[in-house]
C-alpha cells in the first residue's frame, strides 16, 4: 500500500514539475513530419532491437507502463494501460490494475488477457518464436490474469530493476486472439491500442499514421497524424529540418549540425539536450598478453585525459560527460568528486600518465610497445574517439595501429576473440543499473562480455545490488562494482558518455528529451503550435 501511494505521489510530483512545459494550451491538428535514420526489418517490437522500429511504430501501440513523458531523467514510471500498481511486501508480486475502456484499433476491448498473452510471448515465447528481451525477464516465474482488468507478475526473487524493465518501449501490447492464431502476425501487420492508427508503410520511403478517434486518453492525441520519412544520410536529415520539410529528428544531431541549424533558422529552432544512455567502451581481451596483466589495463585507462576530451571532443562529436557505469545526473550515478578518485578519472593528467608509465615498466612492457586497436567502421562517434585514444596511448609510449572493420562484420570479429583492444558499445532504453551493468558480468554468464574475463567478485556485487532492498545499500554496492570494474581490475574502459542533441522546429510542443532515443515516441502529448 505504501509503495502504491509512493507511486501515485511520484506521478503527482512529476506532473507538477512538468507543468511549466505544458503551460501552453495544446492545439489540435497538423501532421508531424520527422526523418528516421534507420528502417526496421519487421514491425514486431518483441523481436526487434532498433530505434528504427520505435520512432515510426511506437505511436501505434501502448505498453503496460511507460516512462513519464515529461521526465528529463527518463526513469520515472508513469501509467499507460495500467493505471495503478502495487508491490507485495516481499517484493515478489507485482499487481497491475488496467485501465477500462481501452480499445484496439479494430474496435475490440483490451483486457488483461491481451497483456498476459503479450508478456507471455516476450518472456516465454513458444518454440520457434524469437524474443529479443526474454533474458531481461529471467526473474519472472509467471504472468497471471486473475480478472479482466488485473495482471499479476510473480517473480522468483525480489528485483530492483523489474519495474524499470516494464517501462521498455518495445513491449507493445498485442491482441491475444491474434497471437493465439499466429505469434508472428505482428512482424508484417500493425494493430494496437496506441494514439495513432496505421495508414501505410512504403518500404525504403515512409510510414504514415493518423489519429485514432477512439483513443482511451480523451482529447489526445493532439496531432491529426504523422509522417516518418526514412532518411539515411545525416546531411539530408539536417537539410530536411533546415528546409522546414521536417519538424524534428528524434535520435540526435551533431554539435555542428545544431550550430548550423541555429545559425540558419534562429528562433525557429529550439534545442533540447541531454546526456545520452549510450557509451562506447574499450574492451581489453584478457586472453591476449600482456592485457591479462591488470597493471597494463590500468595503464591504458590512466593514459586517457577524459576531462580535457570532454571539453574538446564535445565540440565535434556526440559525446560529452565524463561517466562511470551510470549516466551522469541519474539516480545511481557516481558524483563527479567521487568519480575523479578512480584510475583514469584523476584531474591531474601528468600524475596519471606518470603512474601509467610506471605500471607498464613494472609489467615489463617496453617503450614503444605495439598493439592493434580494432574499431567499428561508423564515423560518428567511433572515428573521433578512436583517433583520440590512439593519441592518448602514444603519450605513455605505446604505439597503436587502428584496424577499422565494417559494421555488419564487426561483432562477429570481436566475438571470435582475435582482437587485442577494441571498441565496444552499449545503449539502453532506460538508465537502470541491472540493465547497464549486466554487460560486465563474467563472460560465462554473459557472452556479450567480449573482454573475456571471469570475475566472481564482480558477479557477486552485481547480484547483491540487484537484490538490494534500499537505495542506500544499492548505491553502495554499485560504487563498489564500479571501482572494481574500472579501477582495481580495469576490465573495461569507459570513453565519454554520448550527448543527445535534438534541434527541432519551435512549432513542436509537448515533447521532452530524455537520455534514451528509444523513449518518448508515442507522440500522444506532442502538438504543433501552427
Amino acid at each position, binding site marked *: 500500500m505504501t509503495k502504491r501511494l509512493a507511486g501515485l505521489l511520484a506521478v503527482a510530483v512529476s506532473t507538477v514539475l512538468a507543468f511549466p512545459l505544458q503551460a501552453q494550451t495544446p492545439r489540435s491538428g497538423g501532421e508531424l513530419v520527422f526523418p528516421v535514420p534507420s528502417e526496421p526489418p519487421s514491425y514486431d517490437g518483441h523481436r526487434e*532491437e532498433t530505434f528504427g522500429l520505435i520512432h515510426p511504430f511506437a505511436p501505434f501501440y501502448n505498453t503496460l507502463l511507460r516512462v513519464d513523458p515529461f521526465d528529463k531523467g527518463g526513469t520515472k514510471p508513469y501509467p499507460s494501460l495500467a493505471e495503478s500498481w502495487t508491490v507485495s511486501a516481499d517484493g515478489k508480486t507485482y499487481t497491475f490494475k488496467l485501465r477500462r475502456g481501452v480499445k484496439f484499433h479494430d474496435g475490440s476491448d483490451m483486457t488483461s488477457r491481451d497483456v498476459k498473452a503479450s508478456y507471455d510471448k516476450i518472456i516465454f515465447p513458444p518454440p520457434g518464436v524469437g524474443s529479443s528481451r526474454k533474458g531481461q525477464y529471467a526473474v519472472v516465474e509467471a504472468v497471471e490474469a486473475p480478472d479482466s482488468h488485473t495482471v499479476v507478475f510473480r517473480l522468483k526473487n525480489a528485483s530492483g530493476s523489474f519495474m524499470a524493465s516494464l517501462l521498455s518501449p518495445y513491449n507493445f501490447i498485442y491482441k491475444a486472439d491474434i497471437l493465439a492464431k499466429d505469434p508472428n502476425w505482428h512482424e508484417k501487420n500493425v494493430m494496437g491500442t496506441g494514439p495513432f492508427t496505421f495508414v501505410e508503410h512504403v518500404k*525504403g520511403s515512409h510510414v504514415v499514421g493518423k489519429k485514432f478517434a477512439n483513443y482511451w486518453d480523451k482529447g489526445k492525441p493532439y496531432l491529426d497524424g504523422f509522417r516518418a520519412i526514412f532518411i539515411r544520410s545525416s546531411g539530408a536529415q539536417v537539410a530536411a529540418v533546415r528546409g522546414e520539410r521536417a519538424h524534428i529528428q528524434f535520435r540526435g544531431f551533431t554539435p555542428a549540425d545544431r550550430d548550423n541549424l541555429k545559425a540558419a533558422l534562429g528562433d525557429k529552432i529550439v534545442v533540447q539536450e541531454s546526456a545520452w544512455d549510450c557509451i562506447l567502451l574499450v574492451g581489453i581481451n584478457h586472453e591476449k598478453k600482456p592485457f591479462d596483466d591488470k597493471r597494463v589495463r590500468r595503464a591504458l585507462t590512466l593514459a586517457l585525459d577524459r576531462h580535457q576530451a570532454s571539453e574538446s571532443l564535445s565540440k565535434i562529436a556526440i559525446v560529452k560527460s565524463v561517466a562511470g557505469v551510470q549516466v551522469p545526473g541519474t539516480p545511481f550515478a557516481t558524483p563527479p568528486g567521487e568519480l575523479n578518485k578512480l584510475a583514469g578519472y584523476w584531474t591531474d593528467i601528468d600524475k596519471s600518465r606518470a603512474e601509467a608509465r610506471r605500471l607498464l615498466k613494472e609489467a615489463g612492457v617496453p617503450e614503444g610497445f605495439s598493439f592493434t586497436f580494432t574499431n567499428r567502421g561508423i564515423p560518428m562517434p567511433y572515428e573521433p574517439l578512436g583517433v583520440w585514444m590512439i593519441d592518448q596511448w602514444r603519450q605513455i609510449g605505446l604505439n597503436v595501429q587502428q584496424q577499422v572493420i565494417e559494421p555488419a562484420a564487426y561483432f562477429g570479429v570481436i566475438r571470435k576473440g582475435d582482437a587485442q583492444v577494441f571498441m565496444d558499445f552499449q*545503449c539502453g532504453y532506460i538508465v537502470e543499473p541491472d540493465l547497464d551493468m549486466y554487460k560486465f558480468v563474467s563472460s560465462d554468464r554473459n557472452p556479450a562480455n567480449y573482454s573475456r574475463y571471469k570475475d566472481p567478485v564482480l558477479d557477486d556485487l552485481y547480484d547483491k545490488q540487484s537484490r538490494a532492498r534500499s537505495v542506500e545499500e544499492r548505491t553502495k554496492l554499485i560504487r563498489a562494482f564500479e571501482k572494481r570494474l574500472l579501477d582495481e581490475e580495469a576490465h573495461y574502459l569507459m570513453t565519454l558518455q554520448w550527448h543527445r542533441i535534438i534541434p527541432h522546429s519551435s512549432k513542436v510542443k509537448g515533447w521532452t528529451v530524455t537520455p534514451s532515443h528509444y523513449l518518448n515516441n508515442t507522440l500522444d502529448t506532442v502538438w504543433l503550435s501552427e
Partner: protein
Amino acid sequence: MTVYIIKRMLMMIPTLLGVAVLIFLLLRVVPGDVVEARYMGQGSQFTSQDLMDIERKKLGLDQPLWKQFTTWMWGIARLDFGLSMWTGSPITEEIKLRFALSLQLAVMATVVATLLAIPLGILAAIKQDTWIDYAVRVFSIAGLAMPSFWLGILMILVMLIVFKWLPPMVFTPFWVNPWDNLAQLIWPALAVGYRYSAVATRMMRSAMLEVLREDYIRTARAKGLWLKLILSRHAMKNAMLPVITVVGLEFAFLLGGLVVTEQVFNLNGLGLLFVEAISHRDYTLTQALVLIVAAVFIFVNFATDIAYAWLDPRIRYR
C-alpha cells in the same frame, strides 16, 4: 540476324549462372550474417544464442551450403527470387518499389546527357581549336572532375540557402503527380546527367573529329553538299557508334550504381537498396540484385551490338 540474336540470348544463360555461383560464394566468405547484423549492433546485452539459432533456422541458414544454393537456383528457374532475409517480404516486391524510381532517373539522366553531349561534341569538333571548342572542353572536363554527388550537395545548398526551397522527400510516381515527381527527380537527373554528358561529349568530339577526316566526308564536301547534310547523314551516324557504347554502359550503371547520389537526394532507389542489402548481409536480396544488374548489363551490351548494325550497314552478324 535472327540466328545471331538467339545465339546471344542463349549465351546469357551460362554468363548469369557464373555470376550466380560467384555472388553466392562471395557473400558467404564475408564475415557476419543477417542475424548478427540484426541483433549484434544495437548495444543490447541480452541477445541470447537461442534467439540467434531460432532466427537462423527460420531463414534456412542452418542448412548446408549446397542445399541453400540449389533451393535458390530452383527458385530462380521458376522466376521466384524468394524472400528478403532482412524484411521477410518477397524480393520482387522490394525491387519493384525501387525499380520505377531508378529507371526513371536513369532515363532522365540519359536524356539530359544525350541532349548535352551530341550537339556539344559535334560543335566542338567542327569548331576545333576555337574558343567554342575550348569552352566545350572546359565544360566537359569539369563534368568529369566533379563527382555527381558533390554537385548534388551544391545544388541542394543553393536551393536551400538562396531559394529557401527543397525538393520533396518522398517519391511520387509520374502518373500520380507529374509536378511532384519532376520536382524531386529533375535535380539528381541534372547532377548525374552532367557527369554522364561529360564522358559522352568527349567521346562524341573525338569520334566526330576522326570521321570528319575520312575520305568520304572530303568527297561529300568536294561535291558541294550542304554542311548540315554532311554532318547529319554521313558524319554523325558513324561518329555515334562509340558514343552509343558509352551511353549504353552508363545507362546500365545508373540503374544500380547511384548509391551516394541517392543518399544525397534521399531517393528510394536500387543503389541504396543494394548497399543496405550488403550491409545487412541479406544474402537473398543481394544475390537477386546482382543477377538483375548483370542481366541489365548483358542486355544493354546486346542492344548496343544490334544498334551498331542498324547504324552501320557494313556490320553484319551471323
